[in-house]
């Protein structure tokens, strides 16, 4: 086995000597997590909320104070109906709350349409999030003061609806796919392109040793990335890991192997590094990003796209991760996505060995 060890050592040297690529694969996950965590968020902060109070009672005054004291809103007082239209149009507020005259009494009498919420829905996701926040604040106030039977939403697993809770699992899926699939396919294609693959195949190294030897350094790098992403999301964004950490690392390992098998398969179809890179970027990265649920919810996709997303393991891995990180669900709830990842891995490995043999036997 010593000669296998030296082969793995050579792979580490290749990666170590290529400092630029190494820097990219180490820094990329950090940058992506920070970017998605800080910039591409859908939670709200200091949203300007217009309030037109026609009641002017102690009751409505207290409600307005609730909004003013919340970190999510900045209250702008509005006075007449004309203003209501113009501030929405001019973008100076994102939402307007109208409290009709004699509100408290009329609510107790069971009348409806006493408090009205107008939302700027030109950004639908934003509008929906604001609605939830406003309902939360006003709902709890109504309950406290008038004791209505009221729907009280409780946001489980992510009470503040922080989008970073969703983007961390998604990013992990995308980043690992990128690094594992692209790097192995390019690295194997390079051996083919330069002709060193023949030299390796003539040597006493077995084919599986060449393939596994290529994978091991990237598995190591992937774990460095996993640890960095998890650490960043815990310490910078407060994303919890409620489930078992060992299981998280174990199943991430399975996903990494799945991604590596993608890389291996790609390398058996191409002859040059450039084409390997093109296929992994366009044919794998794009669908992984778009169909993993990281950016667009899978449930909103047309049926055929939903089926297509099932081919890419990222979707299943995101599911496994959110069970493990946010919900601490028992294994049986995410056995199915795990099974899919395993199935995809086996199919890819089988196809890759078959193609590898075709070429070299």
């Amino acid at each position, binding site marked *: 086995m*010593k*000669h296998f*060890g*030296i*082969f793995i*050592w*050579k792979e580490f*040297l*290749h990666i170590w*000597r*290529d400092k630029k690529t190494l820097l990219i694969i180490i820094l990329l996950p950090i940058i992506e997590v920070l970017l998605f965590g800080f910039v591409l968020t859908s939670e709200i902060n200091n949203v300007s909320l217009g309030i037109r109070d026609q009641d002017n009672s102690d009751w409505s005054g207290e409600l307005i104070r609730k909004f003013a004291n919340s970190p999510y809103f900045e209250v702008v007082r509005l006075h007449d109906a004309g203003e209501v239209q113009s501030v929405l149009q001019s973008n100076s507020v994102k939402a307007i709350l109208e409290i009709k005259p004699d509100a408290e009494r009329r609510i107790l009498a069971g009348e409806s349409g006493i408090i009205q919420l107008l939302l700027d829905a030109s950004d639908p996701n934003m509008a929906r999030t604001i609605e939830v926040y406003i309902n939360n604040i006003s709902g709890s106030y109504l309950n406290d003061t008038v004791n209505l039977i009221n729907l009280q939403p409780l946001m489980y697993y992510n009470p503040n609806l922080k989008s970073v809770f969703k983007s961390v699992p998604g990013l992990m899926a995308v980043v690992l796919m990128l690094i594992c699939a692209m790097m192995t396919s390019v690295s194997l294609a390079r051996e083919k392109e*330069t*002709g*060193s693959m*023949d*030299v*390796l*195949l*003539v*040597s*006493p*190294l*077995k084919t599986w040793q060449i393939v596994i030897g290529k994978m091991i350094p990237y598995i190591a790098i992937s774990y460095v990335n996993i640890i960095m992403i998890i650490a960043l999301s815990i310490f910078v964004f407060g994303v919890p890991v409620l489930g078992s950490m060992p299981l998280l690392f174990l199943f991430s390992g399975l996903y990494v192997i799945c991604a590596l098998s993608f890389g291996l398969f790609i390398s058996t179809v191409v002859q040059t590094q450039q084409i390997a890179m093109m296929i992994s970027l366009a044919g794998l990265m794009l669908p992984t990003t778009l169909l993993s649920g990281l950016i667009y919810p899978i449930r909103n996709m047309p049926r055929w796209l939903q089926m297509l997303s099932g081919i890419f393991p990222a979707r299943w891995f995101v599911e496994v991760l959110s069970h493990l990180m946010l919900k601490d669900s028992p294994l049986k709830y995410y056995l199915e996505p795990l099974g899919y990842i395993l199935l995809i891995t086996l199919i890819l490995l089988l196809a890759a060995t078959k193609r590898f043999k075709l070429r*070299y*036997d």
Partner: protein
Amino acid sequence: MAAIIKADGLTKKFGDFTAVDAISFEVMEGEIFGFLGANGAGKTTAMKMLCGLLLPTSGKAEVAGFDVFRQSEKIKLNIGYMSQRFSLFSDLTVWENIEFYAGIYKMQRKEIKTRGAQLIKELELGNQRNRLIGALPLGIRQKLAFSIAIIHEPRLVFLDEPTGGVDPITRRRFWEMIYSATEKGITVFVTTHYMDEAEYCDRVSMMVDGAIKGLDTPARLKEQFGEKTMFDVFLHLARKAGK
């Protein structure tokens, strides 16, 4: 002298195309065997079958006493391989390349140290030991690649156009290295496009359209085809095939 390579009706087909058409020949232990032919004549395919890189379609072949169909793993331990297309890993140093190849041929650490040091001394690369291969001139790289290809002292070494793109002086020195390898008892199987190099071989085979059209010492081949040089012999055979 015993034969180290025995091929009998060795054939390789890719679909309808017959790349190697039932070739039969023997390579004797300790000789320099030149394997010549135009591009696309089937040299590389034949060589790949002998090295265990390609499975033959039919026929029989033995390399170093092992069957190419069933014992390719044993063949691998007894041969060395070097091709012009690839000479060493350019992002690894001289010493790392030596260590790598010696390592994958299962040499012991101690052995690698002494043999590697000796190799570096012979090639006068003492102060280049820790330089990256990519920084060395092609000629030195090729000589180093050859020395590394036989570092594990194989019984037989395959050289696939080893001197391609190298200047005449380096080519000459390269052939001196080949001769000293045969003195150590290593059989050399070499493909080349340089006809002056064909003259250096003990025996030469000429491959045309997947078949061997001539096989003998350079002197007798010239006599057989009534030509003055190996270059003319080559043209004689290759032209005939073109018609």
